[in-house]
């Protein structure tokens, strides 16, 4: 187990280097960011030259990349064009997005799995058909439609919530945005759980458990559900990474100043330091989530062993 974890961690190094290099190059291809800083006019060449030197943009790309990576390893993510340290931007935005992700994942787990178990045990009944229909609708409606609709209904028409999230972004305010963010994944989790459960219901170990005379809830929770959760856990694990980086739409709709907001602004302003810095952290989050998911397999299914 320990050796497995070490091996996986070592594998992360090339993935990490490759991913950051790709992002670095992509942002670089967009061209010279200094031109956008002077509004609808040409920056005077002297100031533009100094800004470029200050941000290291006058050097060849490979040199920029090496310097950048060197700095990142010492914890220095550089400075955004407005003079703020990127680490400062991270410190304000990552906690917000993390809270949003936690809310979304909780929705996925609690509602998604519950619905999945309910429908999986009652295949073909009205409950099953109803939930399946609802998930179909949720999956086919884009997030921004759900978001804007809920915002308008709950925020403006009925006045239950504030349409936008304050800068504190406390958990209470993030319930609706979290639900919107989770909606599509939630539907998938429901369907995954349902199918997986329905399949495993006919397997030998369930029959054995029932034959042993175990109470029904114990059969379902300890034997059936636990084994059926493997695909669901894979999905949710990968989803954490997606939700953290892909919340741009939801964050925009509800004016949440999280990772999506910073990334969006970084891209618009072609701010290499911000974009690469944030993506680097997101890549790390993704890699770690994947590792944790793989380790969870062994916990869920005793047949899986890591050496």
């Amino acid at each position, binding site marked *: 187990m320990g050796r497995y974890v070490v091996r996986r961690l070592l594998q992360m190094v090339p993935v990490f280097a490759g991913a950051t290099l790709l992002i670095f190059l992509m942002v670089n291809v967009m061209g010279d960011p200094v031109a*956008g800083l002077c509004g609808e006019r040409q*920056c005077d*060449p002297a100031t533009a030259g100094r800004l470029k030197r200050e941000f290291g943009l006058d050097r060849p790309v490979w040199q920029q990349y090496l310097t950048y990576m060197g700095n990142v390893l010492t914890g220095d993510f550089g400075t955004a064009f407005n003079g703020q340290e990127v680490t400062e931007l991270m410190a304000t935005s990552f906690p917000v997005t993390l809270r949003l992700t936690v809310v979304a994942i909780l929705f996925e787990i609690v509602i998604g799995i519950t619905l999945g178990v309910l429908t999986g045990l009652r295949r073909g009944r009205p409950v099953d058909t109803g939930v399946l229909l609802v998930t179909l609708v949720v999956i086919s409606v884009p997030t921004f439609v759900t978001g804007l609709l809920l915002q308008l209904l709950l925020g403006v028409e009925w006045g239950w919530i504030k*349409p936008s999230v304050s800068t504190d972004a406390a958990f209470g305010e993030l319930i609706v945005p979290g639900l919107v963010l989770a909606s599509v994944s939630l539907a998938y989790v429901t369907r995954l759980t349902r199918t997986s459960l329905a399949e495993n219901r006919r397997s030998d170990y369930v029959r054995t458990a029932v034959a042993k005379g175990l109470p029904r809830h114990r059969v379902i929770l300890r034997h059936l559900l636990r084994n059926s959760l493997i695909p669901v856990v894979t999905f949710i694990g990968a989803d954490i990474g997606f939700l953290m980086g892909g919340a741009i739409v939801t964050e925009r709709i509800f004016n949440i*100043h999280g990772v999506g907001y910073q990334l969006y602004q970084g891209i618009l302003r072609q701010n290499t330091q911000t974009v690469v810095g944030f993506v680097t952290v997101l890549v790390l989050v993704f890699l770690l989530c994947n590792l944790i998911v793989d380790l969870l397999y062994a916990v869920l299914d005793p047949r899986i062993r890591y050496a």
Partner: protein
Amino acid sequence: MRGATHARWAVCALAAALTATACGGGHAGGDGDAVLSSSWGDPPNPLEPANTNEVQGGKVLDMIFRGLKRYDPRTGVAEDMLAERIETSDSRNFTITVKDGWTFSNGEQVTARSFVDAWNYGAGLKNNQRNAYFFEYIEGYDRTHPADGGKQTADTLSGLRVTGPRTFTVRLRQKFSSFPDTLGYTAFAPLPRAFFDDHDAWLRKPVGNGPYRVESYTRGAQLSLRRWDAYPGEDRARNGGVDLRVYTDSNTAYTDLLAGHLDLVDDVPASQLVNVRSDLGDRYINAPAGIIQTLAFPHYDKNWSRDGMEKVRAGLSRAINRTQITRTIFHGTRTPALDWTSPVLGTKGGYRAGPCGDACVYDAAAARRLVKEGGGLPGGQVRITYNADTGSHKEWVDAVCNSINHALGDDKACAGNPIGTFADYRNRITDRKMTGPFRAGWQMDYPLIQNFLQPLYYTDASSNDGKWSNPAFDKLVDEANAETDPARAVEKFRKAEDVLREDMAAIPLWYQNGSAGYSERLSDVALNPFSVPVYDQIKVG
């Protein structure tokens, strides 16, 4: 914020239990101390007067600074603010006297030195100030800001001299009669010593001499401004303060306004213009601003610089149905342009209706004739380049192209050419990579006809994106700047504008309005000619 709200409810509940106090809305009534909230965008540059060149940062600086001059929020005319006198006999040497009794909100006196230090800082190359070129007319700029980007050989402008506690002299490189009228621009604001002594602390919490002071500033989230009670000027704030909240999407801000969580939105999103009248009624403002949109041409491209192309450009101009586009796409928030300046200048400031004349009026037959006479479109097609990331440019570019295609009777005559980001777009312009017409917008820095012509069309000027160059135009601008009489200067500028028309250097499209919407709590809301709300006049409650 949340804590405060809860506390207030608790107090209200208690008060209601004891007496029948009205706590409706949770606001402090109309005693002039109530604070309003307003939408804001995160400024891309640090908040320094000589480093802010866009409207979001400019908005704040306008609230916390007062300069020598101030543009009347209604008429746009430059009036003395901190300047007691600005005297000159030759339009080149100016003696400026600063009014007595002005202080910064930290108590420091505003003196001649506050201005001279600030201007020297702005002009210094090593300070990386984006607006440094505003000081280029002052003598010694070539040494504090060498054009080749080399090391600056002087830290101070030789043209600035402090001659007394409240007086200083300015010597310009050349005659520039309207120089005093440019001094209302924020780049010329005075700065306290705190700015130089502890720069980082100042940036975290800017200190100025305007009617508001910064109470707290959370970068990228919120800026809280409160009325400065000891403000010595006459334009004291009529409200307790303004909370500027950063919104990523103007649609969210608009929704917040409808839900009653935001008081003022100064950018009504294009998608809401259809509903805004029914949503807000007379709480919607659509007022002219000093912004003009044009189509510029790459005059460095031989396809567009050869003889006869001025006819093609005029033909394209006549093929654009401005009236229809401003009505259907912009819902009246733009007005068809008839010249290259802006109506907010007023006739005294140099605006006059119609120097563009027929060339700006839609006429399909004339358009076809002119394009044919000029030798046809280069390559048979024009592609209008624009940046697709902001400002819903796609909609109007497509509409303009449809109009051109329709007028010229050719489905392929015009097509849009979107560029992903503004920075990339600017790069292509700087690198002279444009091959056809492209979007050019201009928001005035100060309400003078000079500001609409010189930076945009003078040879090698900073915003002359099309690199148009015409000796007759340059000569007239030089003469106008050298005139001591403002009326005669305006006359010369108008002549220069006529030269612009002869060559159709750029196609005027429309004048842009400023738009804003506000909540029922507010009254006396107005936009100034820079499309910024006049915050200090707003009454709450």
